[in-house]
């Protein structure tokens, strides 16, 4: 219903003055002559604008980031630099080198993320795509967790902690218990999600009861979660491998490992299917359930929600629990699927933070997050090939991701670059 709906122009787009907000600036925007705006939380409306703009902004941000990435590839390429020194004498050399550097990088990325046209065996040709999907799974799950919180105007930066705690808990079930697969795997997944929900719920509950800002609390809980897992990895009754000095748990039992979905030759496991299911479930919750309706109401206008009998605090707690369980599922995906060789402190693989980018790029909408997660999965998968075959640092992928966020966070900059009309009266 509101899946692709545009949001109304934020008042902040008008010149920020007392008079601009007093009586209507245009017949379509008859802002009331009330001091309402002073009560409006400015940071919240800013967050809303960044997290829920239209899809076009996302596409343009990706486009811009890729362009800047190209410039960086060119600028750091030896041949390009050499040919640039005699560009006036033989410009064709320079442009050929430029083309080869950039097209080489992006075609390597394509080969590494979607379809490898250099090898001949069909299974090997399509292998990159399955890698992309494997990487995309936890990014989508994490993105849903962050994006759902965004919809309630909560900024969940605690993805890392939620993933670590959930991964640790799922890992414990995964190697300490001996159960048939039909019980073991679901139990491990559920326990992981439950601990994720708990870890996210703490932040929600503290906000609801004491007004503690969820950004601060979730950041701090990241540290608490990290050291809790560290502690668990030193105790044999928890996660420590007997006789080992490394902070790493034993590998998961087969009965608790997410099965490979396309046969043993591909690494793609059930985690990606769970991510797709999560997309559908979150979509339904947000757009078709009363809970989602209340979450959106609280996110869009907590004052009106409260005046309408909605318990805002309880909604915050519930949202953070669901968000935590989704990030928990991302952690479970790592421990029981991608890295089933054992729980370690880096099991989150920075997904907890990448999820924020995914949610932003996906405009906090489940289908947008699915698309953004796939894109980031492809960047991750392709980045390795790019480094191997073109000798371009895999960090470029990180730079491109960061640039996407930067462009998304600065709508006026994007508007200026693409000469879009200001949003003041759509």
């Amino acid at each position, binding site marked *: *219903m*509101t899946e692709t*709906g545009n*949001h*109304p122009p934020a008042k902040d787009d008008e*010149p920020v*003055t*007392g*008079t*601009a907000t*007093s*009586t*209507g*600036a*245009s*017949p*379509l*925007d*008859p*802002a*009331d*002559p*009330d*001091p*309402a705006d002073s*009560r*409006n939380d400015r940071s919240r409306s800013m967050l*809303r604008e960044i997290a829920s703009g239209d899809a076009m902004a996302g596409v343009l941000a990706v486009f811009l980031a890729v362009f800047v990435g190209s410039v960086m590839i060119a600028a750091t390429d030896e041949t390009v630099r050499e040919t640039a020194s005699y560009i006036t004498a033989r410009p064709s050399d320079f442009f050929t080198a430029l083309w080869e550097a950039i097209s080489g990088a992006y075609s390597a990325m394509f080969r590494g993320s979607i379809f490898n046209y250099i090898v001949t065996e069909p299974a090997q040709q399509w292998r990159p795509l399955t890698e992309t999907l494997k990487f995309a799974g936890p990014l989508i799950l994490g993105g849903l967790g962050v994006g759902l919180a965004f919809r309630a105007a909560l900024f969940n930066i605690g993805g890392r902690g939620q993933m670590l705690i959930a991964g640790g808990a799922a890992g414990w079930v995964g190697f300490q218990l001996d159960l048939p697969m039909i019980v073991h795997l679901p139990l491990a997944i559920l326990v992981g999600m439950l601990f994720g929900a708990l870890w996210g719920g703490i932040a929600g509950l503290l906000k609801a009861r004491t007004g503690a800002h969820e950004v601060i609390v979730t950041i701090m809980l990241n540290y608490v979660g990290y050291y809790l897992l560290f502690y668990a990895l030193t105790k044999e009754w928890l996660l420590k491998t007997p006789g080992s000095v490394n902070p790493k748990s034993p590998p998961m039992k087969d009965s608790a490992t997410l099965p490979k979905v396309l046969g043993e030759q591909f690494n793609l496991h059930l985690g990606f299917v769970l991510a797709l299911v999560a997309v559908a479930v979150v979509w339904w919750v947000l757009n*078709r*359930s*009363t*809970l989602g*309706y*209340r979450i*959106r*109401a609280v996110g*869009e*206008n907590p*004052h*009106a*929600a*409260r*005046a*309408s*009998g*909605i*318990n805002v605090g309880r909604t915050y707690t519930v949202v953070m629990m669901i968000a935590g369980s989704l990030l928990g599922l991302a952690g479970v995906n790592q421990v029981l699927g991608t890295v089933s060789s054992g729980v370690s402190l880096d099991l989150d693989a920075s997904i907890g933070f990448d999820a924020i980018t995914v949610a932003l790029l996906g405009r906090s909408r489940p289908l947008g997050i699915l698309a953004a997660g796939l894109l980031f999965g492809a960047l991750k998968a392709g980045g390795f090939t790019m480094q191997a075959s073109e000798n371009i640092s895999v960090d470029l992928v990180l730079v491109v991701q960061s640039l996407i966020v930067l462009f998304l966070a600065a709508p006026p900059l994007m508007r200026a670059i693409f000469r879009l*009309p*200001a949003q*003041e*009266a*759509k």
Partner: protein
Amino acid sequence: MRLVLRGITKRFGSVVANDSISLTVEPGEIHCLLGENGAGKSTLMNVLYGLYKADEGEIELDGEVQHFTGPGDAMAAGIGMVHQHFMLIPVFTVAENVMLGNETTGFGGTLDLDAARDRVTEISERFGFHVKPDALVEDLPVGVQQRVEIIKALSRDAELLVFDEPTAVLTPQETDELMEIMRQLKEAGKAIVFITHKLREVRAVADRITVIRLGRVVGEADPKASNTELASMMVGRPVELVVHKDAPTLGDDALVVKDLRVVDLAGHQQVDGLSFTIRAGEVLAVAGVQGNGQTELTEALLGLQDDVSGSIVLDGVELVGKSTRAILDSGVGFIPEDRQVDGLVPGFTIAENLMLNRSFKSPFVKNGSLRLGALREFAQKKLHEYDVRARDIDSLAGNLSGGNQQKVVVARELSRDLRLLVAAQPTRGVDVGSIEFIHKQIVATRDSGIPVLVVSTELDEVVALADRIMVLYRGRVVGIVPADTPRETLGLMMTGERPQDLKDVAS
């Protein structure tokens, strides 16, 4: 100073807020800009003040074309603006506020406060403002704060003064005083632009009236024209300004409030021992200047205040201590005073807003999922019934005009099974046409036997709707009087004075 605006056009995207507006203001003249909210009055003044740049047209002061790039230029050229929301710093003194942005400094950058003090005293004496330069602004009544704004403009040698909806925050007495000040300024040869949508004030002071509708000048009006004529010009069709209602058919006591006390988050006693009763089929209107406990009273009725003591009994059921949800479910309809904060979710569609307080148990909910079909059908019906002017039920509430937003709120509340209606500022910032409609709905609600509490800072509205009037001052009841009490008496009561011969009317 003579101001000429010639063909001012200002567009926001595809929306034309000002369409080739031309206007002349002579020195020693009070020129009224009359128009509904959103007609483009404020946009025009923001263009004049350098806040917006006009797409077309020019501004001429004393025959010279001006090119303002910001308010600084406008001020330097002799234009002063008295904003609706005061641009004062509460913890500064009057003198400090007046010099702010225009500080005279002495050796080493020290502030020359004495000069500012003298300036305040001089202007204050000249116009009889009675403002002390060393008073803290936060300690001053609203009407005096407004005079500080005027002093501020005059201290910069403003020859043209713009008053943007200046009376919205004033008591009737303060309004009268402001009118007197405006006349004095006129005598002193200042040119005055007075922006308002209140007809009574226009007729009291205007020398000339320019009516603006939908961004265009629709014509000049004679200050002697009747209210109905002016309103029709503003709206563009004949309007009914009087609310027609029959004598109330009173039932039993429905809402009984006893010794209600509300302490706000800052620890201030905002409602201080209120007791009143509303009978079924009766409108009790609460009059008072904004900020005398009305907001806290309505919020306490809805369970939105935390620190409430006393008792609120509706049809024999105690409401104090119940959750907002329980109170709403027990049949209390609530039109909040600020629809954009408490009444609507701007990013939601009209349909979504219509189920805002019915997301738990209602025809639109089944087993935790939304019944979108039922909701759409309902919304379609209400859109038509309440004459909400929108493209369709999927239009975002935030894109509607104030009047249409309010109609959505009213439609939502009146569509429920009510046992009490609490309407706070039901027509604030609403166009004349919608006011008429909303007032009719409130009267119809009362006629169906539902007790109604109306809170309004507009005396006209209070008098039009009330069966009895309760005047509040500093959280206490000054008196509960009949609806035909003279306006002067009500105005006096709003300042906390209780006339000697006043008799309260029991319900």
